[in-house]
């Protein structure tokens, strides 16, 4: 029997209302016990005194680019980036080449994740074949082989009839439709939020109504069908308003918000910064404030990164030729902790909840907990010490992050999946951790580290 004891860390587990110094005992990849002063016996011991221990984060919105986009990310590098950010379970979007719209596509992601990934990966399959918005994929068949949700992310389902049928059909399966809400006619050739900054920079704008008009339409369709609509990366105050209204009326709609929309505004684009170019675009301060409030009052359910790797060649370009998107797995928790918890706007428990049980709840799952008997997925976090986030802290294959050089007051010290360490921060010393042969020299476990663990 393999046993691991994480000793004297401050355990933060909102699912059990725990926030105090405790020990966590892991046996055979599962949480055996969480309480004060557990006898180590023959267990390996990680000394976590002074650190925090939280359930592994769950990200329901990432892009791993494999297959077809291996130049910017692979399942191997993407899951390492996730582990470096304290994530132990991620959903990856189907906008790969080819699109993940078939059993083969879903199985490919699952098998690559098993052989090369270091955390749990759930493939999201597309709503329509080829993401062309015309013909539904075989939802039942795809779920049967492991798809966790459906989305045409990156592209909206423009045809309301298709969206209606998709929402109707998913009622059968009990999974949400992750919808990227955008009216492509309104967006046209836009590259950033339409407003004062776009006027000044001479960049064609994307009007905020491009998102909210589709959020409103999709909420109406969810109301009409009773299907579960999940709105991806909400970015405007008008969309927040539409979601709040729909929820008030009992419509099954959930929503996520990204760390960048919670912390940045369109001002970040000044200087033609392509690492501030994403979809939906960064909006105004009033939008940002509305998103923060919406997360706080429950209108928006959870945080999701929309980790979108793009190669340097693609991003190092004139603004309107650069692709949309930034990476976000490594920085999500540190950025949000620094912005909202150190300033006392949020409690640590609130932030952890929004990154663990909250996204799990969107998926009707009970992940994101250290409850005994569950899979031992957790991270050990160092809080309070200001440290510069540098390029070498990026494990993604791409470096399109606006936070390189930023000072953050949180670092993920180590991440464990199934009780096995899959990440060790190169600059943080954690007695007892990172010493096992399972960890590669670069601080991340090689795939074979998971042998013996039951996934």
């Amino acid at each position, binding site marked *: 029997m393999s046993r691991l004891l994480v000793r004297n860390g401050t355990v933060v587990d909102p699912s059990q209302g725990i926030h105090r110094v405790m020990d966590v005992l892991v046996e055979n990849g599962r949480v055996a016990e969480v309480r004060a002063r557990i006898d180590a016996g023959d267990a390996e011991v990680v000394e976590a005194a002074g650190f925090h221990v939280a359930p592994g984060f769950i990200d329901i919105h990432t892009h791993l680019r494999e297959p077809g986009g291996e130049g910017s990310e692979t399942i191997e590098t993407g899951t390492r980036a996730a582990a470096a950010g304290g994530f132990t379970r991620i959903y990856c979007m189907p906008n790969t080449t080819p699109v993940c719209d078939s059993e083969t596509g879903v199985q490919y992601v699952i098998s690559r994740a098993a052989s090369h990934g270091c955390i749990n990966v759930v493939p999201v399959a597309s709503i329509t074949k080829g993401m062309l918005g015309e013909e539904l994929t075989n939802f039942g068949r795809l779920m049967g082989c492991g798809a966790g949700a459906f989305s045409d992310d990156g592209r909206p389902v423009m045809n309301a009839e298709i969206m209606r049928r998709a929402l109707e059909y998913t009622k059968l399966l009990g999974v949400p439709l992750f919808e990227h809400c955008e009216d492509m006619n309104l967006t046209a050739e836009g590259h950033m939020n339409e407003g004062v900054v776009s006027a000044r*920079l*001479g*960049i064609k704008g994307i009007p905020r109504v491009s998102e909210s008009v589709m959020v409103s339409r999709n909420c109406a369709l969810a109301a009409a069908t009773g299907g579960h609509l999940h709105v991806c990366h909400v970015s405007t105050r008008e969309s927040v308003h539409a979601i709040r209204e729909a929820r008030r009326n009992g419509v099954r709609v959930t929503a996520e918000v990204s760390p960048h929309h919670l912390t940045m505004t369109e001002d970040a684009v000044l200087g033609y910064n392509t690492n501030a170019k994403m979809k939906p675009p960064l909006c105004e301060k009033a939008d940002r404030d509305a998103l923060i409030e919406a997360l706080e009052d429950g209108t928006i359910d959870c945080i999701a990164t929309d980790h979108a790797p793009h190669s340097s060649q693609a991003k190092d*370009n*004139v603004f*309107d*030729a650069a692709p949309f998107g930034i990476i976000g797995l490594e920085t999500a928790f540190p950025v949000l902790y620094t912005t909202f918890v150190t300033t006392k706007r949020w409690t640590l428990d609130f932030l952890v909840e929004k990154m663990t049980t909250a996204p799990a709840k969107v998926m009707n799952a009970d992940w994101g907990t250290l409850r005994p008997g569950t899979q031992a997925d957790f991270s050990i976090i160092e809080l309070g010490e200001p440290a510069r986030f540098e390029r070498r802290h990026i494990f993604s294959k791409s470096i399109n992050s606006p936070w390189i050089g930023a000072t953050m007051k949180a670092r993920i010290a180590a991440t464990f999946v199934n009780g096995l360490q899959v990440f060790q921060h190169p600059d943080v010393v954690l007695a007892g951790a990172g010493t096992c042969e399972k960890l590669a020299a670069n601080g991340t476990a090689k795939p074979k580290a998971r042998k013996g663990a039951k996934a």
Partner: protein
Amino acid sequence: MPRGYGRPVSKHVATVSLPGKDLLGIEGLSSSDLSTVLDTARGFKEVITRTVKKVPVLRGRTVVNLFFENSTRTRTSFELAARRLDADVINFDVATSSVAKGEALLDTIETIEALGADFIVIRHGSSGAPHFLAKAVRASVVNGGDGAHEHPTQALLDAFTIQERLGRIEGLRVAIVGDILHSRVARSNILALQKLGAEIVLVGPPSLVPDSFAAYGVEIEHTLRSGLRDADIVYLLRIQLERQRKNLFPSLDEYRLLYGINRERLGWAKPGALVMHPGPVNRGVEVTRDVMEMDESLITTQVTNGVAIRMAVFYLLQGAKSDVAAPGS
């Protein structure tokens, strides 16, 4: 120290220059920088009215005109300015290239660096392209127009033309009429004329003059009559035919009906108001031919002054690098 031809140029060593190695936009310039350019251009205007129109302050230097969009007028003006300063000029015409946006720029940068360019004049369809280029090269980059962002030498020559005619800019009311949203000329002129003390009113339909422009501290009017009220200068922008296809306005005919300038409508502005246009003019659309031929029209003067302004810009950017003789006095 090089000597001028014809009349000797004054012997003082240049101490004036522009901030930084590049001219990327009016945004980065102070009102005194603007005055420096206008004062310097006055000297060069005198040079180009001589029989021998050269001063060899850029002898041995290479100017590359890198034009990703067609513009014979602007390119010729830059070329003439560079030649009158005795520079070697290379015209890199990439407008016809079918290479995707951005890629062509990255590819071309290496070539230009290898050619040993001292100045690169860039015109590009992407806003911010000159800023991107300036970070990548040692040469001085001059923005010859980027997307819908800025066209600083146009604004400088416009300010020069106004000052030359009226002796001042401060306190003037300038109405800029037309497609403000897509106009780099409008943005650079708003910034330059405001810094020099003018009052700006933007005139055009709401789809081409959105409210977000109020952030510039300008007035916005959607009807021509109210927009022209008390205007000292009526600055007309070229209407781009392709915008109409995107339904930003219904038709050229309707544009002419609502915003076209003729003699009668010019009367809505201050008596004796001057008419300007960056060219090329869609005759009979933005403005009638008879208005263009009035003494109040500065349209051809703008073109002449473009050369003097661009000479001044090269000269001042060069001034940041070495000691060169100033022209005129």
